[in-house]
């Protein structure tokens, strides 16, 4: 159960190896946190972060749960496994995703399937399972890492952008469904973030570090916010982008 200072007693990260996800968890750590659950497909890798947590906060119990982000049908079971470890979930961050950078999807249409599955189908079932849990709890904050890429999908990352557009739209509506029961969803729309996902790529304007994203997210978790952009200026940039005439948008260089 979260306390009156806004400290989460239990924090869960799906995509336990995600750079942004780990930065958010780090930002939430303070006296009062009792459990961190890292849900990942690579426990060994995730535990490097786990050990880091234990070193900073010896009182925190770090748990690992294995999951395959492609296995949409398994999400209810995975959530149950998490719940069996921590009882109630105070804050859960959903970070797993694939970018598909450098893949020629026109040549290899089947390559779009894992992106659609991990970023959309399985994340959707995960959000539903988590939504059910927080609804039963009568409180609980779900953080979804979406992306500005979904706000107006561009040709250079159409597959990724479309999966983010879909999951983003779904999460906003699911939040409405949950709000009368006490749970809520925070949709985070970062721009370019320097992380594992983007190594080797050329930085886009308004790029941010995972730590900077984490800071805004931590503040938003404490508030009533349902959607944030990081950095916040992207909200206005993409508002303009959304309204550009298609003729102009299709000729944009990205």
């Amino acid at each position, binding site marked *: 159960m979260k*306390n*009156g200072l806004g400290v989460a007693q239990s924090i869960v990260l799906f995509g336990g190896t995600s750079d942004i996800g780990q930065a958010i968890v780090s930002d939430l750590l*303070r006296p009062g946190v*009792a459990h961190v659950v890292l849900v990942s497909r690579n426990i060994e890798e995730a535990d490097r972060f786990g050990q880091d947590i234990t070193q900073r906060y010896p009182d925190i119990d770090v748990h690992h749960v294995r999951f395959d982000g492609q296995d949409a049908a398994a999400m209810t079971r995975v959530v149950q496994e998490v719940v069996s470890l921590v009882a*109630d979930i105070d804050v859960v961050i959903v970070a797993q995703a694939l970018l598909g950078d450098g893949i020629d999807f026109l040549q290899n249409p089947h390559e779009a399937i894992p992106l659609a599955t991990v970023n959309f189908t399985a994340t959707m079932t995960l959000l539903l399972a988590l939504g059910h849990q927080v609804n039963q709890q009568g*409180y609980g904050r779900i953080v979804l890492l979406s992306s500005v890429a979904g706000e107006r999908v561009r040709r250079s990352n159409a597959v990724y952008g479309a999966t983010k557009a879909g999951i983003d739209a779904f999460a906003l509506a699911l939040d409405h469904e949950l709000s009368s029961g006490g749970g809520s969803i925070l949709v985070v729309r970062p721009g370019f973030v320097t992380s594992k996902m983007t190594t080797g790529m050329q930085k886009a304007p308004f790029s941010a570090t995972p730590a900077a994203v984490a800071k805004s997210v931590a503040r938003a978790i404490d508030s009533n916010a349902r959607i944030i952009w990081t950095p916040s200026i992207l909200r206005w940039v993409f508002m303009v982008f959304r309204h550009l005439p298609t003729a102009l948008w299709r000729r944009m260089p990205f």
Partner: protein
Amino acid sequence: MRQKLSGWGRTAWSYSDVVTPSSSQDISAVIAAPQHRGVIARGLGRSYGAASQNAGGTVIEMANDEASPIALDPRTGVVTAGAGVSIDALLKYCVPRGWFVPVTPGTRFVTIGGAIGSDIHGKNHHVDGSFGAHVLSMRVMLSTTEIIELSPSIRPDWFWATIAGMGLTGIVIDATFQMLAISSSMMHVETERLQNFDALIAAMGSSSDDDGYRYSVAWVDLLASGSSLGRGVLSRGEHATRDQDSRSEPLVYNPKVRVSAPPWVPNGVINKLSIKAFNEAWYRKAPRRRTESIESIAGFFHPLDGVRQWNRLYGSQGFIQYQFIVPLDQTDVLRTVIGQFADAGVASFLAVLKRMGESNLAPMSFPTAGWTLTLDIAAGARGLPELLSAVDTVVLDAGGRHYLAKDAHVSPGAVRKGYDRFEEWKTIRNEMDPTGVWKSDLGRRLGLVDP
């Protein structure tokens, strides 16, 4: 109906299914229905943290001044009242008849059930003990829906586990307790200003004349520094006698709520500057030398009740009230703690300092011979979790503990370390509620019950 609830501090909101029973049959019907996330009783929600809410589960709203008549024996002052009856209603009924509640907190808007659940204390603790000490018997509904009578001689272990049991042993239906005879509704009060912490401690200490006053409490200015560190105003009183009260009807009692806080207050209205100015003005206002005055019951005991919903003044992030106690010989620890808050730059309106008397038989009762300090802090203050965790350690290492009715942040370990009879209480609790029906957010966070 699913409803968003918090305690008086307006933090840690959660949603519970709230039911308002009109009889004990209604209550048993709720308990008998399958309850996935348990049930808790709620009084007037004046606990600061999450004691009377139950995220995803059921909350039974007990507060109801009309639920049962107040049965007062005008000769003995023994009264029986429904658990949902407020001290406000009780005073309105009993004061004109010459009887006062044995213990009142700093607000009259608490229920008898809440007074028992938290085993509340007042300004008279050093003389009269806490509320539980005055309870002669009570009827409690167990999780089987059976209603049993408990008293210091009938199932005393269950009786004392329910006193300060935070609603986690059963639902108090009604209680019988001893009132205090008074001959005036006025208070005879002595006020004096003390220029620093040592002077304050000396004036209130066990070797002082403090035990000669039924009511005694001091307000401390935590923002004063240097040689004024811990300066305060000591206020002590007694119910006025007939010769001190010249009114023709000395038992007339007519408390008033004067104003309401606006429903929406921007964040930051209460900040370090406004607090400092307030504390300074208030200290200056108090008489330099010991001064006698006659005050009303409301003015002396319940000054904050004059402003309805003053808790909203802290804005949307709410506030917490930090209350701990340390043994009598640990005055240095008080000084350390005051220093910790000062160093961190955390501002608090007047902190309250009181010397408490002996503890009672309830394993989870907070008061014990020692010094208790209480302060209000805006919940959003930067670095607060770190600061409070450091203060908690100092308090616990000194053999102290925290008041659960106020708590919004301590760790499960802090309860086990502070309350040395915790395991004993938990065993009795589990015996009274083997199927684990009673649950609250506070109980979950602190592991008082299984999740």
